[in-house]
């Protein structure tokens, strides 16, 4: 066998391995109450997931063995992904007087298409539990947003709920925004290395405070090159979680809101260098 034949065989083997669906390590047998409660509001709306997989550029080669062929089973990863996308797409009030941003902003950040928020991207799963999610630049083709098992398996706590998962779509999508407009947010996974200032985490951001109504809905992508009109990934995530917790559509279940509020507040207390972000909602237990 010539060297060339060996090489061709090796390349074919590598391509075959790449095309095969990854075997899921993540738990595919259970869902959090927040996921189940949200799920029951749509009862597995097929027209939505048949739109969603295209809108998030998802494929069976990435999500095989994770509910791609069982898309109405809320215990599996792919159905949980589209459950979170459902919350993001329909679950917000979009009230000009109250919401930080609108559905147009959050969808623009999470969905695949090259737009004012980012270049093309696609969504894939990862079993790597050393991250919640990641955004990766690809020289060829779309950039990649990975969401980790930590956002799907409730036994791995506490982010396996639709609000936190959709919040991560925002966070990772915002790294895409940083890339699109050539901003450098730091060398620790796209954040400033911490702990530093008021930030107690390893990856820290600034909070670029802005009032309600400072950004028209659909204008979150705007920046003027200064700290006066800018967002960081953790800030976008916190503002999204606050909008879910405090200004949702009337049908959004309380379990979803409660988990979103808890995530927003822990993140706002720990991840910002220049002081805590907003406290979302009031601390009355119910």
């Amino acid at each position, binding site marked *: 066998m010539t060297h*060339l034949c060996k090489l061709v065989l090796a*390349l074919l083997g590598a391509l075959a391995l790449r095309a095969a669906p990854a075997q899921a390590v993540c738990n595919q047998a*259970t869902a959090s*109450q927040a996921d189940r409660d949200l799920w*029951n*509001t749509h009862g*597995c*709306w097929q*027209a939505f997931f048949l739109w969603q*997989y295209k809108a998030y550029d998802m494929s*069976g080669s990435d999500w095989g063995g994770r509910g791609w062929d*069982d*898309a109405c*089973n809320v215990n599996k990863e792919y159905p949980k992904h589209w459950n979170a996308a459902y919350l993001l797409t329909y679950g917000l009030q979009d009230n000009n*007087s109250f919401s930080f941003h609108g559905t147009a902003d959050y969808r623009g950040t999470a969905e695949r298409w090259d737009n*004012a928020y980012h270049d093309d991207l*696609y969504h894939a799963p990862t079993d790597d539990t*050393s991250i*919640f999610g990641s955004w990766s630049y*690809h020289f*060829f*083709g779309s950039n990649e947003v990975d969401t980790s098992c930590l956002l799907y398996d*409730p*036994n*791995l706590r*506490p982010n*396996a*709920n639709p609000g936190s998962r959709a919040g991560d779509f925002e966070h990772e999508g915002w790294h895409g925004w940083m890339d699109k*407009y*050539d*901003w*450098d947010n730091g060398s620790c996974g796209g954040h400033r290395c911490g702990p530093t200032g*008021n930030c*107690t*985490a*390893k990856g820290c951001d*600034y909070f670029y*405070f802005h009032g*309600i109504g400072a950004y028209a809905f659909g204008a979150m992508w705007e920046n003027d*090159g*200064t700290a006066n009109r*800018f967002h960081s990934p953790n800030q976008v995530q916190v503002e999204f979680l606050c909008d879910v917790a*405090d*200004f949702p559509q*009337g*049908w959004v279940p*309380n*379990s979803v809101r*409660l*988990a979103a509020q808890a995530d927003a507040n*822990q993140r706002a207390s720990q991840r910002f260098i220049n*002081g*805590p972000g*907003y*406290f979302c*909602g009031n*601390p*009355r*237990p*119910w």
Partner: protein
Amino acid sequence: MRLRSFLIAWLVTVSGLAQNVGEPPGRPKGPPPQTTEPALTRPSELDKARLESKPPSLAVPAASAAQAARAFIDWAGASTVRQREEVRRLIGEARDNASVATAFCDEASRAAVSDHSRALLALSILGEMRSRVGEDCLRKLLHRPLPEKGTLAHGEIVEETALGMLQAKAVDGLAYLHTARGDEEVLWAVAKHPSRIVRAEAIEAYLWNHTDSAEARATLQKYVRADEAIFLDRIRRVPEENAESFNKRLAAFQKAHPETASPPPHRAYRKKRSLPPGDEKPPVR
């Protein structure tokens, strides 16, 4: 021969780059997601039936308390903002039912390791109950040591964050008791709890439950850590407050705390691929 070696080296390099640098342009798509379930119509058609579901009773004997508490958590989790006052009323009516309070506490413990969202629900209900049993349960949870080992994600121990979030919910319940014993726990948490999540929540809960009074601030100043004093002035975003009022408070906060101003963002040192439409301006004349 030399040409063949060069070709092999080139193919190996390109193959490696394709694997490591990114996906090939033609990422395999395959068939769309599938299900064998029958297709439903529109989700909005399910709303009415959901809102009409009757709450499970908490007025039950001790033998049925666990079952009733679990059913109530199911119902309360699925309830909506519109049902908030009804949930509060039902919880209040069960205040003196120690068996039910114990069952909520047990369910919170059980769910803490299997379903964080359910544990948050159970603790919220328990805090809203303002019962003696609930108080003991929340206090024990607040003092549970944080795990020092576990799943490390982005340098954070996930189990530690998870427990911190539950303890923050416990502190909300203790502050809501409006009792000297409850406040004592809250102030202890402000000063000494090892988790910043809990300390931050304790400050907020104490202030809110004391109507953000000057006295409450003065009390907190005795307990709050020097490097966390800014949490006393933190901006709270509540659903009832309109934009004008919130924006005024935010402006006052920023004026009082110039140190919260962010530095200018950094430009990345690489070739720009696109510009925001707002930047497409002619040069200044």
